[in-house]
């Protein structure tokens, strides 16, 4: 029985798609995990979000070749996923997350006393971040990723670059006000 050409082409294309997808996973899984963790602040939730993001990519792998910047595209996908999850899990108290995060954050070369103080400080800063308006908070969180430029942040959030800059400026002002208020 002769195998039709289309079947061969389909198999080759499927194989190529799978290879592309595997390369994406190897290259960007860590980045996506960190983006997810910065919002969800839970390792297992962040990993679930990464897996869900790649499942979505698998579903739309036919259009993978049309994507211009795959990194930003993937970050946008996982960003939407984690925001959706965060919205749904709003009933969970934020204080637990902050305390857990302060414990997890690295503080090498510090004594036990300094480590405890640093953890308390991080927890306080993160609690202040949570009080920011959503738009400013999102820009501030994404700006912490050094590999993301303002253009890329704008692309992830679907806004203009000037909006990113103005929101970031407002977020930093608000944070300065909040932290100075507490210090006084």
């Amino acid at each position, binding site marked *: 029985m002769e195998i*039709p*050409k*289309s*079947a061969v082409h*389909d198999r080759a294309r499927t194989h190529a798609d799978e290879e592309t*997808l*595997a390369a994406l*996973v*190897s290259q960007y*899984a*860590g980045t996506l*995990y*960190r983006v997810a*963790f*910065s919002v969800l*602040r839970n*390792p297992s939730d962040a*990993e679930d979000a*990464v*897996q869900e993001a*790649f*499942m979505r990519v*698998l*579903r739309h792998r036919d259009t993978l070749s049309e994507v211009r910047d795959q990194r930003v595209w993937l970050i946008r996908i996982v960003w939407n996923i984690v925001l959706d999850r965060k919205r749904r899990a709003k009933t969970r108290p934020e204080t637990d997350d902050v305390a857990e*995060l302060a414990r*997890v*954050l*690295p503080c090498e070369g510090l004594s036990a006393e300094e480590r405890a103080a640093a953890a308390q*400080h*991080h927890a306080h*800063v*993160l609690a*202040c*971040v949570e009080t920011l308006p959503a738009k400013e908070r999102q820009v*501030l*969180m994404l*700006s*912490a*990723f*050094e590999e993301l*430029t*303002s*253009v890329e942040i704008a692309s992830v959030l679907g806004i203009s*670059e000037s909006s*990113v*800059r103005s929101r*970031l*400026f407002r*977020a*930093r*002002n608000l*944070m*300065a*006000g*909040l*932290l*100075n208020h507490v210090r006084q």
Partner: protein
Amino acid sequence: MNYRDKSDFSSHSGGGDAEATLRLIAKLAASDGLEDRVHAKLITAPRRGRVLAWPGAFIPAGGWLRAVAAAAIVCVVAGGGWGVYSRVQPGQSAQGIAGTHITSQGTGQGAGQGQFSTGDAVRRPQTLNGPAAPPPVTTATPKHKTPTKAAATTTQGAKAKTVKKANTAPVAAVAQ
């Protein structure tokens, strides 16, 4: 332009504190074996995420089978619509309404084809007392006067004049 090129934002100490903490979070390493777990999940995932997945043997080159299937669906829908349209005659609704008049009482089978049945409705005549007609007035009729002789003569004279005019009119038309 990257916002990191601008150093004016870092002047805010509070913003700097917040960003330092957020950068620490952003630099947290992913858990070990994350990529392998994602790979495993993708391998075990269903291959096709479509609602209607075509079996591999039925996927022809060019997708002509899909076109044929779409055309068949269009034909079925159009044929069904035409069948309904052709059965419903224009103006039939008025006949149907007229058919609701009781053609046979009590049986419900008196409606003809294409008409509504009576639904076993029984038509009952008006049993309420309508407005009662007043009884005829029995009064004495007045006596007619006998025509006088003078009136009789004037009417006879007028009749004679009209007959005479009718006889002379065609003659005058021919002369002209």
